[in-house]
């Protein structure tokens, strides 16, 4: 489905060239949730921005269904590979307006409040029905995060890229959301690549786990295997002390 092959990416900051990704290769499991964890600044966010071509790698290839992502029209690619950023942005209007945004951009009639799609999205994202008519900008950060996820799912992507998807949610809501997402991934054939610093979330929600450090995937496998038997010292250190304020499994 989605595949990163030997990706290299540098960034220029203050006239200096900083290596972000250095030969990264990763193949998220189809129809499963793969979590990418790693220390701050290891290139997690860059990785998912490359996958839907918000940015280009300096070298390497990213494939979607065996085709180079550059072979797709960018708009089509981004509908097929949906990205939900860490800080949700709500467009002016109601929650329903936001959920229909990808339809409006395609010049297609957006779904109505009574439609099966909207009911399903509210259900997956743990959002109450009466929220549909509310001003999306007045919602709590947690609600906005879920509306943002529902809005991306509305475009029926094949791959879902999530950047810290539950950072604004309380623990029970986050757990319910990720459990539903896991089910949706299996049922709909949705490949989910989630970057997070939340090891507990990764353990509870992701079937596969990739540990990213120094611009490469150092370890990858079944989540429980990777967490129980870390092979690299840097992962062992990361599991002991992920970073200030980050969660242990």
């Amino acid at each position, binding site marked *: 489905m989605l595949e990163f092959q030997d990706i290299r990416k540098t960034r220029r900051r203050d006239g200096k060239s900083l290596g972000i990704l250095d030969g990264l290769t990763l193949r998220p499991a189809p129809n499963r949730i793969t979590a990418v964890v790693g220390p701050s600044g290891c290139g997690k966010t860059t990785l998912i921005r490359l996958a839907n*071509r*918000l940015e*280009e790698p300096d070298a390497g290839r990213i494939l979607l269904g065996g085709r180079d992502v550059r072979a797709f029209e960018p*708009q089509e690619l*981004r509908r097929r590979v*949906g990205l939900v950023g860490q800080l949700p*942005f709500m467009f002016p209007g109601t929650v329903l307006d936001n959920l229909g*945004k990808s339809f409006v951009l395609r010049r297609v009639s957006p779904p109505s409040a009574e439609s099966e799609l909207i009911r399903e999205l509210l259900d997956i994202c743990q959002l109450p029905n009466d929220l549909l008519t509310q001003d999306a900008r007045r919602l709590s950060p947690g609600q906005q995060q879920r509306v943002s996820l529902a809005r*991306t799912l509305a475009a029926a992507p094949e791959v879902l890229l999530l950047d810290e998807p539950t950072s604004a949610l309380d623990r029970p809501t986050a757990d319910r959301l990720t459990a539903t997402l896991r089910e949706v991934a299996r049922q709909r054939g949705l490949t989910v690549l989630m970057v997070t610093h939340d090891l507990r979330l990764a353990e509870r929600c992701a079937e596969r786990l990739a540990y990213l450090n120094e611009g490469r995937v150092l370890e990858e496998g079944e989540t429980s295997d990777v967490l129980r038997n870390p092979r690299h010292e840097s992962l062992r250190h990361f599991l002991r002390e992920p970073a200030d304020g980050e969660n242990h499994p």
Partner: protein
Amino acid sequence: MSDAAILDLGLFDLLLAYGLFLLVVGLARLRDVGQERDLIWASLRMVGQLLLVGYLLHWIFAWNRPLPVLVLLALMFGFAVQVIGQRVSRKMPGFYRVLTLALMLGCGLVTFLFCVVIVGPTPWYDPRYLIPLTGMIIGNSMNGATLAAERLSAEMSERRQEIETALCLGASATQASREALRGAFRAALIPATNSMAAMGIVFLPGMMTGQILSGTEPMIAVRYQIGIMFAITGAVGITSFLIVAQGVRRYFTPAHQLRDID
């Protein structure tokens, strides 16, 4: 035009007017504002520049050939590009190319339409018409162009998250930056709109005042003023629109990616 000749101002009259200015310098010194040198320098510069322009115009009017008129217009245009470049602090990618093209098309088209087609002097390059009217059109377009360029940079920076969210949902660069374009274009049109709304009530415009002083019948002066205001608004609007429409594209790659500018 009326035959009534305008009263000339002699050196003594100008010195008397300069006395008013010196009074302001004195007040600034009294209150320790610390801008006296700047004030005096600016006043000397203004006098020098105007005298130079006066002699230049005198020579161009006397010669009455198209080439010097066109050279002067090109100089005015180049000066406008340079001044806008100095005024705009955050420049969009490809700023000078976008600006030059927009000013050339916006001001060029309006100047031709208003000066050559609407006013229609004979010969078409009559410096008495072409130079002051083009000057007003370019001068006012400078403000619109500065506002459009400055506001576009601010909008693209402030709306970065909004634009990338829209791109992620499958928007094209044009769709994603629609609000930024709208905001910048709106900002550029505000001074021209305000100026039209206040004209005749809050202030009497310079061109009209000048024509009346030089003996033109007031209704003719009013008609010129109405015409030039529409021409100015047209030039400001076209120039600003071209700046934001061309400028906004330069923030994106051909793959509809928002460039990392900041």
